[in-house]
């Protein structure tokens, strides 16, 4: 079953900071596939990075690539063997399709599947389009009281929830999050939901902290910029000392949601002995870490790569767990949506996400076709 090619308007990256709105073919619908009319797509830092540089590390965009991976939409067709959703269902799309047969997939840590095809990671096209074909086991129905805009935030919320899981946040914990972008904020929300007694957020940008004041944080710390020529480690040491003085203690866990070397270093320095520094933000290939704190104070360092299953009690996919947090009102993601653009203006949307002006937090692209 195929749809008319002319109707699949897609935002394809064709050069540096260049989006071409073009019609892309819609793949054949396999028996276990779902055809989704994508309605809302959030822009993520990785989309911005590909937009700006046409690459992330060794992943190069050498051919036109449709961007976007944080999406929700409406089911318009289902394959012959699909049982999980029906036509007209409103759904969230989990963008990484894994092989389901390797050891990683079979043991539950499918985010580490070496054969994963992830939307908008070359060569797999993304979801900033009209029609997207996707296997049913990566499609999740949204309850009636959850909007498609919220559905498109399930992706970054899943990152935040999985990060909190990896950090092993327990009731009563003191949690510090570095970076008040969408992932940092959603990580704070997830930490609160996991029972953290105090959630502290730190950032360089005052307006981001103003927003954070209203959103899932107890304390907001404004970090000053490094002095001219100041080595990263000097900055990290002195800033950590200041923070410890201010808080009166280190944190049970620190989650870095920036990827900046200074923050990665601070994450280790600010974690209590025996605790975990969790690295969510992806930065440079190599970074200098205070390894003496890792050994002598037994500070664990754990990375977070996307999400898979959460909850130590019973294994549950991150996506439905995140959706359930939205329905129970435990986490409200709506305040993060600061700007929207129609799909025809995808280029403008990406430019705005790139420069982050006007207090932008989460920019979403809306498709009304």
């Amino acid at each position: 079953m195929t749809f008319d090619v002319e109707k699949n308007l897609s935002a394809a990256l064709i050069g540096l900071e260049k989006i071409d709105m073009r019609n892309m073919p819609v793949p054949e619908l396999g028996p276990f596939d779902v055809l989704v009319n994508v309605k809302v797509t959030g822009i993520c830092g990785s989309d911005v990075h590909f937009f700006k540089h046409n690459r992330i590390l060794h992943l190069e965009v050498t051919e036109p690539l449709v961007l976007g991976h944080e999406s929700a939409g409406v089911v318009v067709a289902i394959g012959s063997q699909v049982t999980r959703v029906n036509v007209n269902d409103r759904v969230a799309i989990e963008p990484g399709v894994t092989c389901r047969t390797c050891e990683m997939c079979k043991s539950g840590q499918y985010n580490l599947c070496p054969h994963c095809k992830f939307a908008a990671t070359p060569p797999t096209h993304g979801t900033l389009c009209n029609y997207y074909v996707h296997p049913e086991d990566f499609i999740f129905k949204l309850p009636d009281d959850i909007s498609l805009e919220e559905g498109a935030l399930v992706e970054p919320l899943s990152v935040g929830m999985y990060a909190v899981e990896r950090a092993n946040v327990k009731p009563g914990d003191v949690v510090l999050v570095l970076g008040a972008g969408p992932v940092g904020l959603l990580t704070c929300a997830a930490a609160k939901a996991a029972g953290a007694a105090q959630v502290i957020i730190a950032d360089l940008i005052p307006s981001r902290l103003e927003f954070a004041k209203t959103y899932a944080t107890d304390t907001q710390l404004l970090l000053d910029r490094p002095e001219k020529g100041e080595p990263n480690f000097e900055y990290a040491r002195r800033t950590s000392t200041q923070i410890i003085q201010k808080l009166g203690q280190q944190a049970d866990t620190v989650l870095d949601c920036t990827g900046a070397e200074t923050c990665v270093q601070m994450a280790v320095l600010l974690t209590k002995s025996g605790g975990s520094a969790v690295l969510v933000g992806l930065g440079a290939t190599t970074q200098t870490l205070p390894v003496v704190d890792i050994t002598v104070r037994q500070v664990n360092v754990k990375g977070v790569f996307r999400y898979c299953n959460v909850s130590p009690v019973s294994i549950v996919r991150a996506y439905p767990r995140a959706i359930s947090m939205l329905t129970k009102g435990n986490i409200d993601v709506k305040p993060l949506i600061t700007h929207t653009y129609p799909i025809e203006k995808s280029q403008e949307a990406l430019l705005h996400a790139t420069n982050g002006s006007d207090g932008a937090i989460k920019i979403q692209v809306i498709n009304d076709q």
Partner: protein
Amino acid sequence: MVYQTNTAAVLYQAHDLRMEERPIETPGNGEVLINIRATGICGSDLHYYLDGTMGPLKLDPSAPMILGHEASGIVAQLGSGVTELKIGDRVAIEPGRGCQECRYCKQDGGEYNLCPKMKFLGSLRQGPNDGSLRRYASFPAYLCHKMPESMSYEDGALIEPLSVAVYAVDRTPVKQESIVAVLGAGPVGLLTAAAAFAQGAKSVLILDINASRLEFASKYLPNIETMLLPKIASLDEAQQQSEKIQKAFDSQEIDVTFECTGVVVCVNMAVHLTRPGGSVMLIGLGKPSTIMPTNAIITKQVNIQGNFRYANSYPKSIQLVQQEKIPLNGLVTHRFALEDTLKAFELAKQNAEGVMKIQIGDF
């Protein structure tokens, strides 16, 4: 033999180690006086001897320190209130006195090794704390673990480094069927490999740049696999070498890698050698900051853990030796009398072939 005097090896500053007579301390409440019979030398002891420092702390000649912390001995006298030990008990000494009040000491005593006020034998922190390189020392009875009759003083003094290995392995996911790699075939690496086998590891691969150390490893643990490493100059080379090693090792996916050298390229190799979702345990202490492959740490979700000494590990370690699940024979290659402590340190300094663990004492 009962000594009337207390000969001690006292370090004043780097390369200034003097044998002196010290008073024999009367054991206080809850303490026992031990006639120390064996003390092993560890890399940190050697570092004190060569450099007179530990991290930011520097030895002050006006407050010299007796070295040594890997010790065993026999109880010579009881302080008041001691009920668990009697005179003549042979003990392995756990050299770290925690404050017993902080959250690390109190939390079921589970992480007392992280006590910020820890007073550790032969260490400058919260010190100087006189160590075990002396004839007699008084020490808390609760830190003196009874050795089985069959255990020699030599073995008893090896319980300290063995506890490091046992504690480190226990904190990682090593279990039945695990595939393990160990970087560094010195005493800590060897004991870690032994502890990994005792924990059920299916195979253990040990890597070193020194062929004779690998030969020693094969004799010490017949089931171990060894691989000789070239000297690696860059981080890129470290990554390439890791890929070569994985291919050579039957492409078995390594679940846990123990880093027992502290060398930067090895710390990086540890991450590249380990499979996605696996763990790296850093035991070796090198420079305070090290460049690390953070991108690989994140995208492979290789969990990084660090190890500092041990907690509640002595009884388990003693038991593992008694049950012959962990061999110790052959590890001690050189023995010196206490009076010859200086000779022992000079030998340790040479880093010569055929020297594994040096012990000092009256065996």
